[in-house]
């Protein structure tokens, strides 16, 4: 479903990704961990071309992301993304946030789009906020709306870029609960996160990125308890 081979990315002089290769299967839940500045967010953003790869191969859902001729809008319709800072559209109500893209891109009629939005809001437990403005919601609620907004396009993959890092500690749980539910329903998810407990519980595979390459990967039971790479060991000893 996702095939990455020797992915390279540079910002000016700094070489952020130095050859990342991995394959991700349908319905797999992958957590990406690593120190800040290690390139894990950049890696995620290369998957839906928010950053253009400088080298290597990235194929997502059959779209060649590295190829300049690929229609990126079509690719992105099938790949949802949830951001650290939520990025809800503040000039639209919750409902309008959810129906804009499906109506504009998938040709959904307004009643159909509203129906879909209501179903998704029920799923994230925010049906009562359907007419609220995003700024009136708590961080956790905003992030759940953002997840619903991504789901409204019925993507086959969702990318999470540190979805709980901007939240107050007591609000993290509600967002993780929604993500966990998605994982159980079989959504393909790639999650950049600092929530090690969540990664251990939900992930099928954990990838540890440092200095722009995958240092180590494996099932959480193995990577968290018996890491082989000394960098992984050093990192985990700091965060666990």
């Amino acid at each position, binding site marked *: 479903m996702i095939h990455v081979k020797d992915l390279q990315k540079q910002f000016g002089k700094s070489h952020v990704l130095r050859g990342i290769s991995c394959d991700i299967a349908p319905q797999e839940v992958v957590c990406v961990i690593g120190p800040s500045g290690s390139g894990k967010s950049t890696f995620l953003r290369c998957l839906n071309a928010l950053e253009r790869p400088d080298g290597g191969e990235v194929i997502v859902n059959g779209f060649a992301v590295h190829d300049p001729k690929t229609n990126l809008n079509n690719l992105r*319709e099938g790949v949802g993304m949830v951001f650290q800072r939520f990025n809800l559209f503040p*000039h639209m109500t919750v409902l309008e946030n959810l129906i804009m893209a499906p109506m*504009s891109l998938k040709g959904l009629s307004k009643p159909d789009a509203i129906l879909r939005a209501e179903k998704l809001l029920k799923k994230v437990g925010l049906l009562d906020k359907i007419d609220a403005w995003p*700024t009136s919601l708590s961080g956790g609620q905003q992030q759940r709306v953002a997840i619903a907004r991504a789901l409204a396009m019925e993507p086959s993959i969702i990318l999470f870029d540190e979805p709980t890092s901007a939240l107050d500690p007591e609000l993290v749980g509600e967002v993780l609960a929604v993500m966990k539910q998605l994982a159980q329903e079989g959504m393909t998810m790639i999650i950049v996160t600092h929530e090690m407990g969540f990664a251990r519980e939900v992930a099928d595979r954990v990838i540890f990125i440092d200095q722009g390459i995958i240092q180590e990967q494996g099932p959480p039971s193995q990577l968290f308890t018996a890491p082989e790479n000394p960098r992984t060991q050093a990192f985990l000893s700091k965060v666990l």
Partner: protein
Amino acid sequence: MTGFRWEIISEYSPLFIQGALMTIKCTIICVILGTSWGLLLGLGRMARADKGPWKYVLHYAVQWPVRVYVSAFRGTPLFVQIMVVHFALVPMFINPRDGIFVTHGLMSVDFARDLRTEYGAFLSCIVAITLNSGAYVSEIFRAGIQSIDNGQMEASRALGMGWGKTMRKVILPQAFRRILPPLGNNSIAIVKDSSLASAIGLADLAYAARTVSGAYATYWEPYLTISVIYWVLTFMLSLLVQYMEKRLGRSDSR
């Protein structure tokens, strides 16, 4: 000074009313055209591509000309621009004898002649002020668009929305709310600056005052009168802007 002679004003009141209507008409047309033109220029000013042939096309064929344009129109007096437009630019296109529109058959000789005699000053005024305010408005739009958090663009693009759709539905509605106050100031400036077009014979408020002062050799009454009218117009405009700000402020941006 012998006090304010009301009879002068009342005798010429139709002239003042017509002048005020002309000023209002010019302002409305120039605000609409100038804002649209400014939006186009503002987008052109920001047009860029990361790589590929478009990078150079956009940089040298779009961004640079817009920069020069904005710099030129902000760096020269509007009065001079009105003169240039009226006596050089407009005749170049619609002169009954050798205007480009006439020689290329886009316009009949009679039509061009009528247009020049009936609406010459009006047309020049609209063109000059639109070109001028477009330069200012483009910078307002640019600042407004750039003030919107980049996360908004990313979130919309990540949903699969193209650049144009994102601009129209996500970025511009938010930017517009922020730039409403400077756009309002710009409209107020247009109300006042349109008075410069009286120099090319546009029958606006300032022209009315000039006519009356010529007839009676008195300046105090006519110019005080149009000052008050200009003030009322700009004051009402500022109320309108305030009202729109309140309407658009409903959702309260971050």
